[in-house]
């Protein structure tokens, strides 16, 4: 009896659900992990854009990147996928592309000439075998140098460092002035970000790319050893409270002028803004040393799980169009702290750090993909283990070189 009843109820619900789906035009359920204040305000801009284009936005926010991606994949595998799901601009979604579980957005891409307007590294991440499988929405730069103008003034530093040597000289001056030179958050992912920054800026883009492509000769080279040594040298400029420190606690050391520099992604800008500080006034930012410094590119994309439902495909296409339109791009990225994926937008309304970023993006030779675009999540994780071990123990540079060499093999 009970089973019969529940069957009947289930059937009713199914009918209702189908009815509801028909009632809502272009219904799109979007899984994402933007739950903090600034982030949810940002995704709201995309939702508004989608609604204005005649769609119905169903928000599926899941706190935390890993759980959100796991939920998206579970629903795809379980046969009940969302309309769209967030991933990072990386190889995170490569396996599900290869498993034939995503719809491509070739039509939208061709109509909007993505091949021309999108930066190379992003294109490479979203284009698999000639098809576009993800819609990029922003470009994050994970390794900006943020500094306190007050701390620099106290130490008598007048100009931003233009070379690695000037950078270490600046840190020495800060130390002499009694300021913690580097605001450091000793968590593995933060250590990895700092390491990548030094690899790109001290080792150079060539070495960076070779190391992440698993070139054993480059890994054994004196240049790479120098990068490792410089990375370790940075530890002398951190304080005793650095281990386990959260990134935003490190940022607040720069905000209060207790520390000089923090190497962190552009999301740190939100912390400065929350403390009512303005870029260029109380704090400064530079993406690397000198005007030609490489600009590391990371970011977020949305993918569209495979479905044969014509209505759902229409929603997916509409979402892709809205997400990449110039108006949505500026509105969204202003709130998110990142920069637009296209350089043909009006940057005047953005702050000076974002403007520096857009300027850097216009120079193709400065664009450098972040490690997650170059290696599988598995290898990226193994490398993170190596870096954090090297930073925190007395492991020699030579042993670290061996460990890096083994980790990139997977």
């Amino acid at each position: 009896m009970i089973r019969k009843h529940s069957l009947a109820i289930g059937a009713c619900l199914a009918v209702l659900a189908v009815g509801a789906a028909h009632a809502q035009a272009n219904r799109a359920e979007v899984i994402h992990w933007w739950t903090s204040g600034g982030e949810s305000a940002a995704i709201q801009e995309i939702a508004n854009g989608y609604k204005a284009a005649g769609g119905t936005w169903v928000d599926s926010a899941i706190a935390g990147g890993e759980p959100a991606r796991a939920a998206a994949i579970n629903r795809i595998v379980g046969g009940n996928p969302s309309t769209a799901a967030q991933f990072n601009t990386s190889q995170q979604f490569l396996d599900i592309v290869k498993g034939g579980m995503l719809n491509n957005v070739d039509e939208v891409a061709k109509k909007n000439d993505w091949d021309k307007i999108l930066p190379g590294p992003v294109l490479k991440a979203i284009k698999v075998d000639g098809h576009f499988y993800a819609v990029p929405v922003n470009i994050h730069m994970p390794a900006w140098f943020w500094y306190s103008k007050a701390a620099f003034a106290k130490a008598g530093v007048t100009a931003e460092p233009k070379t690695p040597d000037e950078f270490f000289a600046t840190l020495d001056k800060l130390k002499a002035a009694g300021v913690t030179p580097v605001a450091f958050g000793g968590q593995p992912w933060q250590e990895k970000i700092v390491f990548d920054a030094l690899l790109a800026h001290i080792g150079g883009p060539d070495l960076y790319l070779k190391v992440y492509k698993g070139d054993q000769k480059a890994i054994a080279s004196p240049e790479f050893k120098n990068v490792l040594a410089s990375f370790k040298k940075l530890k002398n400029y951190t304080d005793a409270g650095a281990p386990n420190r959260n990134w935003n606690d490190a940022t607040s050391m720069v905000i209060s002028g207790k520390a000089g520099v923090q190497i962190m992604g552009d999301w740190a800008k939100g912390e400065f803004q929350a403390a009512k500080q303005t870029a260029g006034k109380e704090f400064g930012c530079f993406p690397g040393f000198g005007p030609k410094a490489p600009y590391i590119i990371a970011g977020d994309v949305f993918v569209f799980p495979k479905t044969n439902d014509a209505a759902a495909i229409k929603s997916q296409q509409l979402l892709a169009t809205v997400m990449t339109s110039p108006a949505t791009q500026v509105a969204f990225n202003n709130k998110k702290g990142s920069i637009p994926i296209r350089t043909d937008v009006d940057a005047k309304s953005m702050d000076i750090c974002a403007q520096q970023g857009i300027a850097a993006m216009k120079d193709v030779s400065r664009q450098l993909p972040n490690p997650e675009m170059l290696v599988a999540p598995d290898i990226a994780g193994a490398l993170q283990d190596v870096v954090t071990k090297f930073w925190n123990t007395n492991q020699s540079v030579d042993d670290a070189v061996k460990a890096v060499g083994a980790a990139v093999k997977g």
Partner: protein
Amino acid sequence: MLPMLATVLFAYLGTVFWSVRVSVSSSRTLPSSDFVGLAQYTRLFASERWLLSLENVVVFGVIFIVACLVLGFLLAVFIDQKVAGEGVLRTVFLYPYAMSFVATGLIWQWVLNPELGIQSTVRALGFETFTFDWIATQDKVMYAIALAAVWQAAGLVMALMLAGLRGIDDSLWKAARIDGIPTWRVYMSIVLPMLGPSIGTAVVLLSVSVVKVYDVVVAMTQGGPGLASEVPGKFIMDNLFGRSNIGLASAASTVLLLTVLALLTPWMYARARAARNGGHR
């Protein structure tokens, strides 16, 4: 019984077998159905981080269980002295257990942080050279985590032991007093053996939290500094989600399951024997 049986079969045994199956495949983000033999296990035991995790969980487990039992027993004995305000004290001691491991970890992270917590407070009082930086030190961080975990779980052991102590008949104490046996001796030689079942329960409960320890580590250190406080649970979770390597994660959880079974089987066998022999006594 039938729904229960189905739950056990599908939800427990089914998923166990599924994990074992995945652990001998090359699965990454998605489960695949190929067969690669023991390749994932080879990789697992070549991983420095996994071996370190195993070592750490043993260190943590021994400290945690022993300290919880000793402290819990002492607290129970203390409360059993018919102290004033017993109800209040009992609540105070048990209260940490009502908190999640995550909250515990966060609190202790701040207390133990050398720049914010105990160390800086004592230094501010004038003891400039006072050092208490376990949580930031490679070879002491597991003690820091054990400290937080003991703080949380000792109250539970106290409650279990106290129930056991209350079950001991007053006549026993009177007899001991007439014979002139010192109190500590009564506790050691008579009461403690009588608490056997309580201790057994406590050990089982504590062991379970040792095997699955994850949240307190994530909240306190995220496995750091470096890899110094990595534990198997975190290795599995990281590989399962962040590193999309469910093959390796399943291999790791299978190893963990086998370890638990290897420890549990002799114990259950011994208990079954004891129960049989008990019948003849």
